[in-house]
């Protein structure tokens, strides 16, 4: 089923991590990604893994769900690993056969690149797993609001993103539904030559486009009926407010960065 795609899915919950202000989580995710590129020691990786595992546990996310999130990226991860393993030059050769050289440096770099990609992706997943798409857009809008002064239409952009996110599940559901209906009429989407298969997609795409336009129309009408007139002077029902836990989160994030820097300096 299309619906089983987890990439960027939100798992509702009521843990401290879920309740953090989305701005806090966004900033900390960016800091985390930047810090990840400062890590160059095994001790550093161990620290980051420990931190990630701790947050995952506090957020009640099953390790299995985290791993499943990595599945679509297996190809990239393996590719990165192999590229580094085989194409790193060095004199500390571990293994040699014909034109294949595996060096200790290469092995080292392959493992650390793979770790880095996996940690990067899992870290961002932690954000989307614990923060609803609406909260993320809300947080982004607030964080980017200074750009308004530069005439960047931050509000409109975030509204667009919000609507797009809102309709992704709807469109997936709709695709599933139309696909079922056409398959029930004997549509064959899996076999045939490429042009045949492209043609077989028409019965799927046409109703999907029609219904997407219909939905867009209905949404625009509904917004106009409620006197929507853009971002100027709009107030919100749920104000974002930083709380004590956000301060704690920032302090812990700072400690993580400090820890990484210390380990880097010490070379552990």
């Amino acid at each position, binding site marked *: *089923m299309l*619906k*089983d795609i*987890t990439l960027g899915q939100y*798992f*509702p*919950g009521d843990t401290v991590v879920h309740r953090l202000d989305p701005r806090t989580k966004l900033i900390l995710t960016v800091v985390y990604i930047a810090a990840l590129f400062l890590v160059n020691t095994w001790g550093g990786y161990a620290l980051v893994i420990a931190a990630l595992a701790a947050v995952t546990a506090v957020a009640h996310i099953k390790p*299995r*769900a985290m791993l*499943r999130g990595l599945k679509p990226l297996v190809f990239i991860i393996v590719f990165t690993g192999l590229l580094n393993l085989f194409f790193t030059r060095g004199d500390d050769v571990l293994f040699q056969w014909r034109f294949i050289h595996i060096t200790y440096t290469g092995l080292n770099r392959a493992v650390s690149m793979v770790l880095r990609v996996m940690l990067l992706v899992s870290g961002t997943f932690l954000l989307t797993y614990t923060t609803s798409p609406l909260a993320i857009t809300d947080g982004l809008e607030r964080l980017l609001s200074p750009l308004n002064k530069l005439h960047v239409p931050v509000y409109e952009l975030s509204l667009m993103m919000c609507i797009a996110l809102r309709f992704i599940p709807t469109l997936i559901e*709709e695709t599933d*539904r*139309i696909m*079922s*209906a*056409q*398959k*029930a*009429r*004997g*549509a*064959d989407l*899996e076999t045939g030559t490429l042009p045949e298969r492209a043609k077989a997609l*028409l*019965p799927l795409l*046409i*109703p999907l486009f*029609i*219904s997407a336009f219909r939905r867009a129309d209905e949404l625009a009408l509904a917004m106009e009926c409620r006197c929507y007139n853009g971002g100027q002077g709009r107030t919100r029902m749920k104000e974002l407010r930083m709380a004590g836990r956000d301060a704690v989160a920032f302090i812990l994030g700072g400690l993580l960065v400090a820890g990484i820097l210390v380990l880097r300096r010490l070379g552990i």
Partner: protein
Amino acid sequence: MSLIEIRGLTHVYSRGTPFEKTAIDNINLTIEAGGAVALIGHTGSGKSTLISHLNALLKPDSGTVLLDGEDIFASKAAMRAARFRVGVVFQYPEYQLFEETVAADIAYGPKNLKLPQEEIGRRVREAAAFVGFPEDRFDRSPLELSGGQKRRVAIAGVLAMEPELLVLDEPTAGLDPAGREDLLEKLFAWKNASGGTILLVTHDMSIANRCDRLIVMEEGRIALDGTPEAVFAHSDKLLSIGLDLPAAARIAGLLREQGVAVPQGVYAIEQLAAAILALRGKGGAPC
């Protein structure tokens, strides 16, 4: 041999996530050829999930479906073959129309069957006639039709495949009473003319009442199964599931509470009228 035999069918959505949901749970059921069966149940009881297994659109987590004794999930070819023998019309089928003309849309299923051109033409005309869609409007775009007409065209698209079992998920949802009545009559007429079998998913007890068998689902299991009389006799059970009795049965119950001697087993308007007339003929309670 029964037309359809469902054995221990279980389907779990989103297994292994916090959204895990057992939509149908160990369903055992047989459907004989030639009947009209109604499948009723509360929202979310698993009706749509169950019927999506009948033509192998969903694969079960355990259990299987036998069509004429053969496992429909045995191979890809078997799954596709089942789709041509079990026609499923999903909820709000009007959103699946895509061709430029009504006739082309109805012909989509038969075309997938790779039938010869004249045979396709014959089936399109017959299917359109069954649902009462006039032939002089075959060249219209399906998008220009009214909602009720679109629904008819969509149903004709499945009828044109000449299925042995026709499954319809809430075929009358959103139609006006006259349109509903008309569509039902046409569906039953199709069944009688073609000798096919009908499985209707519905919330409407007066529709269920016209079928010769009722299957009631609750939370992914079968709660009641039998003739309308047998099922409606369990009125407490039906009400506790959140389902209703047919209007005539409710009126009969209220009359009985008022001391009017309406006999048990009255479920259809005609039966109720006859019962009341019989009482008046006897000079019984004034009504």
